[in-house]
């Protein structure tokens, strides 16, 4: 592998692109597998899969990652054959394809981690290579009764062989092959009828084989129309209804009189096409291209964070401005206009903040797209029959929340399949369907929170077994049971399993949901009927790198960004000017810096504790541009915290930016030292709340 400049330069874009393609490919492969199991063809998914691998191969050869190129090559080759065979794959070919995707994914991870992609396993390559001939073997035998398509209506020359076969196959299977023409217009768009929504609506009624844009005479007088070729069992009224009725038209693609000499559909001479009044526009509307364009922009999260940081700086500056204006007002200056501008400015900053936060939102559906593959793997390793239902709608989540939440959900899904669901025989014996259900649903709540429910119809949590494993009395309530389940290291299993490892790991789930995200975790369970976990998490979180310290026996946190320096305070060298009311001065690099006792500022008096000397450390923070030192007792370290703003009017106070959970179940205050000092120094009515930028 080369480590040329170009490679390094293209790597991030390459990784992002391949990631996306892999995710799509996994989805498609699952759809193919599903179809294969039913013995059906899945031409669309096969084609998409083929395209994804083709693109992965192309991209990988551009950056010269040979192992991925060769893996993708053999997968692509067999898929091309399958595509030509009308989207049919033998069942035995699914597993090598899954392994192939996994092997590609592993190598992409290696590249992302700055390593070299390991060579493709020879054995896997051989199996993938062998797929090609195998696929050909399953191509359906030539139809005994030839069903003929109305060539003109079907734009024969525009159809690929596989598409034609799909249409004919539909006819043979007793379905209808029809051409549905949709004419877009401004009024229809206003009713929500565009080619995209029509596609979706029609796709519910049948299998769309192809969509062709028409113009000129073919469009029947309209400037533009679309012909949808599909196989369906729906009737005319339903189909026409889906495209908004007239002027839409519908016609069958089957030749009316089968007795007539069948016109072979295949190569229509080019002249015949010209003679027909069909004038399909050059550009075919193929879905992947539309998806790629789509007005989407990929942005690195770090850039959004950077924008957020600048905004935060702006807001902090605004509070300084507010204070300055308040001081002017107090001095009797005419500040009415200035105040009005400031208020306007505050609104604009809030709008800007929510706009930036919106940029960070990702669709929950996209976040969860790996789960079906996970469940597929679990099906194989556990031998259980599982159906995963995802009902996630259009809900969105902040990227930071989504990234943290996913491991918790993966954990819960694993647990559900591995521990909760019974083996098929056991289920049948209990009067259940052999196939277990894992349902994941979510919806946004008005309070800025997302509620996710994960439900299984398995055996339920055995409170006695859990109590025994935890060496505790059987809990009376389900909350108590959940508390036991979430004890670190709890396991009801004697042996570790390969999927869930030893134990449930529920403590990790709770830590993510409650401590890291500031959310809520609940459980309902019924013996023999199943378990439901409900997770409620905020749609966005503010993550802050914080310094945690102790003062007068309590822990506090302060954003690292606001702290200029940490110093040791030598009590003997603190100068206490007369009449300064406890204010001291410390020397820093030749300049005197005021030293405030944080304990005093917080109005706390705590008894001295052994081993902790008071006020021996100080954090230097800028307050109105001037350095001020805040004496604290002990520095406990630096960590990333989730900042929860304090919304309630009772506790919205200057100097407190919010609260966080350091893992002890007690809220820890996150201080804004500059504002705290200012609130005390000025003691003026209506002073600003510099903590507001984080609210």
């Amino acid at each position: 592998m080369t480590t040329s400049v170009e490679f390094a330069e293209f790597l991030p874009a390459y990784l992002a692109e391949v990631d996306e393609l892999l995710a799509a490919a996994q989805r498609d492969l699952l759809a193919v597998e599903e179809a294969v199991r039913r013995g059906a063809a899945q031409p669309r998914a096969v084609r998409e899969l083929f395209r994804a691998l083709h693109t992965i191969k192309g991209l990988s050869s551009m950056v010269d990652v040979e192992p991925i190129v060769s893996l993708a090559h053999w997968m692509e080759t067999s898929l091309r054959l399958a595509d030509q065979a009308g989207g049919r794959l033998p069942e035995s070919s699914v597993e090598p394809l899954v392994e192939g995707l996994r092997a590609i994914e592993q190598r992409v991870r290696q590249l992302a981690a700055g390593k070299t992609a390991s060579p493709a396993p020879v054995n896997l390559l051989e199996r993938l290579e062998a797929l090609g001939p195998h696929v050909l073997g399953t191509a359906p035998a030539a139809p005994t009764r030839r069903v003929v398509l109305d060539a003109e209506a079907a734009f024969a020359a525009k159809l690929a062989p596989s598409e034609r076969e799909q249409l004919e196959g539909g006819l043979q299977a007793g379905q209808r092959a029809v051409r549905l023409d949709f004419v877009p217009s401004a009024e229809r768009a206003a009713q929500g009828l565009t080619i995209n929504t029509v596609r979706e609506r029609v796709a519910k009624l049948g299998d769309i084989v192809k969509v062709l844009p028409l113009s000129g005479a073919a469009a029947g007088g309209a400037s533009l129309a679309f012909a949808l070729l599909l196989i369906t069992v729906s009737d005319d009224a339903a189909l026409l209804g889906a495209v908004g009725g007239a002027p839409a038209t519908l016609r069958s693609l089957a030749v009316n009189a089968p007795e007539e000499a069948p016109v072979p559909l295949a190569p229509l001479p080019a002249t015949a096409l010209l003679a027909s009044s069909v004038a399909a526009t050059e550009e075919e509307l193929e879905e992947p291209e539309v998806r790629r364009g789509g007005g989407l922009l990929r942005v690195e999260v770090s850039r959004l964070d950077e924008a957020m940081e600048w905004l935060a700086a702006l807001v902090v500056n605004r509070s300084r401005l507010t204070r300055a204006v308040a001081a002017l007002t107090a001095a009797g200056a005419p500040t009415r206009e200035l105040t009005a501008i400031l208020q306007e400015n505050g609104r604009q900053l809030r709008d800007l903040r929510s706009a930036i936060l919106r940029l960070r939102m990702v669709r929950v559906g996209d976040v969860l797209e790996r789960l079906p593959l996970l469940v597929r793997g679990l099906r194989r390793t556990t031998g259980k029959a599982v159906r995963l239902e995802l009902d996630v709608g259009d809900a969105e989540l902040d990227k930071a929340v989504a990234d943290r939440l996913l491991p918790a959900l993966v954990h819960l899904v694993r647990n559900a399949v591995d521990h909760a669901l019974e083996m098929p025989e056991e289920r049948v014996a209990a009067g259940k369907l052999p196939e277990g259900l894992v349902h994941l649903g979510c919806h946004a709540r008005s309070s800025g929170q997302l509620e996710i429910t994960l439900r299984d119809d398995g055996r339920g949590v055995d409170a006695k077994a859990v109590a025994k494993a935890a060496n505790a009395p059987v809990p009376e309530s389900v909350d108590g049971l959940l508390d036991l389940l979430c004890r670190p290291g709890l396991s009801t299993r004697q042996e570790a399993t390969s999927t869930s490892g030893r134990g449930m790991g529920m403590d990790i789930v709770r830590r993510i949901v409650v401590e890291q995200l500031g959310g809520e975790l609940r459980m309902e369970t019924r013996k023999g009927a199943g378990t439901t976990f409900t997770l409620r998490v905020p749609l966005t979180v503010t993550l802050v790198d914080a310094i945690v310290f102790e003062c007068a026996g309590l822990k506090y946190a302060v954003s690292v960004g606001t702290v200029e320096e940490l110093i040791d305070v030598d009590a003997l060298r603190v100068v206490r000017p007369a009449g300064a009311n406890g204010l001291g001065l410390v020397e820093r690099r030749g300049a005197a810096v005021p030293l405030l006792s944080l304990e005093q500022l917080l109005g706390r008096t705590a008894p001295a504790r052994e081993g902790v000397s008071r006020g021996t450390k100080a954090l230097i923070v800028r307050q109105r541009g001037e350095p001020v030192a805040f004496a604290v007792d002990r520095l406990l370290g630096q960590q990333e915290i989730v900042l929860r703003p304090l919304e309630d009017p009772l506790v919205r106070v200057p100097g407190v930016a919010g609260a966080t959970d350091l893992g002890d179940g007690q809220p820890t205050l996150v201080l804004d030292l500059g504002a705290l000092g200012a609130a005390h120094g000025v003691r003026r009515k209506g002073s600003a709340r510099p903590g507001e930028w984080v609210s």
Partner: protein
Amino acid sequence: MNVLHVLFKVDGTEYAMPAADVVQMESFTGATPVPGAPSHVAGLVQVRGRVIPVVDARARFGLPPGKHSLDSRVVVGQLGERTVGLLVDSAREVLKLDPRTIQPPPPMVVERAKGFVKAVAQVGPRLVMLIDFPRVMGEETADVDGQR
């Protein structure tokens, strides 16, 4: 129609509020003090992942501070969008109160209770004060100068 109420005790007196306004009850293991908050705010507690302010009923009712014990409870209530807690000495009972036994409080109680008591109910031989929960929780914002 009888309405379900949650009963709790503060300094020996029994109080009640509609169970419909109560989200849950939690035992009290201490609150994180918030500098500059009104003096009747005991601080912040975390309830199922949410951080909520807790008002100390004794401080709010102008009673002498009591010792927190294993019986101390935080009655978590819903006030519109707000979720707030009230720290009480104990809370053990849930009762259905017959509206016919509920009377407006005597004028002296109204005066002394700063409007926190909106009615008095007779439960057998006991008198139970129905509190005006929104008023008890109040909306007084923090002291502007950050001093207690």
